[in-house]
């Protein structure tokens, strides 16, 4: 496949091409910028715990994808951080529910950085000693997140919403689960998932496209991709718990109210309709938000989000409040009222305008569109699809979304209260 996408509204282009090895590349030219960005995204995240490989079922410990991400940076001879820095680049990575992304940004030596990224991601150096050493580092990382109230309130909510889905687990796993990780299992998942057909190359900046294709072709020519079948547990459509409470050393309660979708098949249209719907219900220009703000029940830290992937599809309202239960009631009432009255077309148009402008804003940077694309590639659509969906969205689409987004038994409110 070789495709050039153009967006008139954005005045941007994206080149999509699948290389002979099966690696899919997405390139967004950004003329006039000094920064250049390159990423290799692996369709492998914290939710990918079970899979069939050559007819054999493999089960892995929680936190394996994140652990592997740490180890990919290690090499017998090279210190990759140093090597990138020498080339004026800086390299990093992250793991989320569905993806592991390795990326660099640089000002000079883009092609050398890109070669280095391929070398790093397609090789794995392990010893018993280095695997054990990593456990100490990751335990501290887990411990750090555990002390973060906004992280805690979020994962508690996912635990209430989902019964079996691996999205319930912390991305880094737990001290107990990572204790089970060894060389053999790391090597197995590396060989199974870190293969061209399961990955994408995403680049943006001011450079020659042909150079990128040449490098990608050369670096993946000898690689084959085994056949993997992922296994995800069955998940009921209702939430097993509608409320979860926790306590931490904080000054004001945090809350996270989530609604889970019965189906995890998300497309760009669902993203657009959900985000518009959320703003209409309780965004900055809604009456409900302003009432709660004026009475001191919500502050400007209140946020709305829609998060989705292979094992989850969740609409969220989160923030801090001295009275989360009242906020929760007000949100439910606002949804109920909106279902009765329907959406005001003027409000719909205004919010749509807002999202168009905000989406455009993300193209101010070299890295942001690429980061979005790295997230979307595993979900089967791209950022230009999203731009089109945003332009084409109709009020009826949002009405339709409202009908299936909120039901009686698909929510959970998670609260982290203060320790007395």
């Amino acid at each position, binding site marked *: 496949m070789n495709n050039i996408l153009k967006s008139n509204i954005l005045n941007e282009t994206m080149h999509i091409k699948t290389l002979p090895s099966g690696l899919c590349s997405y390139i967004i030219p950004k003329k006039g910028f000094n920064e250049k960005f390159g990423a290799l995204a692996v369709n492998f995240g914290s939710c990918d715990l079970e899979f069939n490989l050559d007819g054999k079922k493999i089960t892995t410990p929680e936190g394996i994808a994140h652990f592997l991400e740490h180890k990919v940076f290690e090499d017998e001879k090279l210190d990759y951080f140093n090597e990138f820095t020498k080339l004026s680049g800086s390299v990093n990575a992250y793991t989320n529910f569905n993806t592991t992304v390795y990326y660099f940004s640089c000002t000079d030596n883009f092609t050398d950085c890109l070669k280095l990224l391929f070398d790093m991601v397609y090789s794995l150096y392990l010893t018993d000693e280095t695997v054990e050493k990593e456990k100490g580092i990751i335990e*501290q990382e887990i411990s750090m997140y555990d002390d*973060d109230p906004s992280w805690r309130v979020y994962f508690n909510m996912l635990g209430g919403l989902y019964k079996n889905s691996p999205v319930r687990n912390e991305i880094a796993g737990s001290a107990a689960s990572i204790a089970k990780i060894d060389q053999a299992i790391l090597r197995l998942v590396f060989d199974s998932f870190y293969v061209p057909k399961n990955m994408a190359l995403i680049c943006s900046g001011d450079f020659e496209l042909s150079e990128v294709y040449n490098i990608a072709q050369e670096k993946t020519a000898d690689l084959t991709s085994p056949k993997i079948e992922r296994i995800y547990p069955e998940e009921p459509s209702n939430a097993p718990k509608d409320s979860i409470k926790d306590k931490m050393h904080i000054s004001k309660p945090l809350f996270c109210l989530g609604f889970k979708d019965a189906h995890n098949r998300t497309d760009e249209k669902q993203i657009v309709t959900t985000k518009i719907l959320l703003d209409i219900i309780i965004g*900055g*220009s809604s009456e409900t938000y302003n009432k709660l703000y004026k009475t001191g029940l919500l502050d400007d830290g209140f946020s709305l989000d829609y998060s989705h992937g292979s094992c989850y599809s969740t609409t969220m309202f989160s923030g801090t409040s001295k009275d989360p239960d009242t906020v929760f009631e007000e949100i439910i009432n606002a949804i109920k009222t909106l279902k009765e009255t329907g959406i005001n077309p003027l409000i719909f148009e205004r919010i749509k*305008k807002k999202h168009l402008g905000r989406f455009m804003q993300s*193209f101010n940077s070299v890295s942001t569109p690429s980061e979005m694309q790295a997230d979307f590639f595993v979900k089967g659509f791209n950022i230009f699809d999203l731009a089109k969906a945003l332009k084409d969205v109709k009020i009826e689409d949002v009405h339709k979304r409202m009908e299936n987004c909120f039901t009686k038994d698909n929510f959970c409110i998670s609260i982290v209260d203060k320790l007395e």
Partner: protein
Amino acid sequence: MKYTTIKVIPDDKFKTATICLMLRRPLERKEATQNALLANILGTGSHKYPSLYEINKYMEELYGAVFGSLIVKKGEFQIIRLYLEFAAVMDDKLLKQAVEFLREILFNPLVKNGEFSREIFENERNMLKDSISERINNKNSYVRLKCIENMCKNEPFGIYADGYAEDLDKLDPKSLYLHYKDIIRTTPIEFVASGNIDGEKFKKLVEENFESGDLEPVNLMANPVIYNPKEPALHEEALKVNQSKICMGLRGGCSYSGKSFYEFLVFNEILGGSGNSKLFMNLREKASLCYDVFSFLYRAKSILMIQSGVETKNIDLAITKINEQLQAIKDSQISDDELHLAKQSLLAGFKSITDSQGGVLDFNYTQYILGDSDGIDNILKGISSVSIPDVVKLANLLYTDTIYILKGESDE
């Protein structure tokens, strides 16, 4: 008499334009809390847009423009910053609307009978009080704030720019309004704008909407206070958390511009500025003591902070290892490779400043208020010329002033 200064850095590779309007005040306890509350009240409504509801609606009409009114602490300045970022490519009219909006917000706050609206005042006061007590929610920034508070207890930099709960109790809508009037009368307005913007058109709009005259720059910068304790002051606070946090503050002998600043940058980079640094390599990669360990500069105050999160039983070991790395630099244990890497990383950072509007705005404004005329090219040259003996010399002038420890006490 009113003064405005305008700096515009246009670049049409951006889709949006950003305008920042700054009111720069000396950081002083007697007005810090008033300014903090004032920034919030100004951002919440005006005569034309009497509530957040109206403001947010208007911002949506402007294609999702982003507006904010907040406090920035830079060195020993407290800055009230109003900013507006808007999708300039969507509509030519947006620039004019943006400038007029900022004028409205600054000069037309909701005032009745010589005082701020009581309702808004009370709500914003409570919210600010909450946000002050919420400092503890983020342990990394909390330990840093406590370290600075103790380290700079006799200097303006030790003052919290977002205010004090006990000072909030002393304010009322009338006294705050009088303070506002005073601010408007005595503070020059500084504009910095960047992005997809017509510089001449913008200057003309500012002249039409804001009174202007010649600016007489006032040096608001306090003299740096250098203490030289024999031993670092050690503070400990116990908290029910899993992970303990360490923050160390260092100072001495460095400046915020010129050669000494470039040396300070390189020193920080070698010590803890990146994944190649001595702290990262030795505490994390070799000793497996922590996930995060890093150092950074408060440029305008010329101090350096080191932070890490470790298990409670490893606090002393981590501090020993941090000190070993500081000593190593003082003893000139720096390889040519380390120096080269540090410089490469700094150069890349400075070269990409022009790729973000936030970077452009912050860099230009910082240079302006510090009276530093160096452009990015000069800074690149300056960093390149730093040598190992330069770094060693600077390292030997630095000393640890304060160590703040947030000691985790688990339930078990």
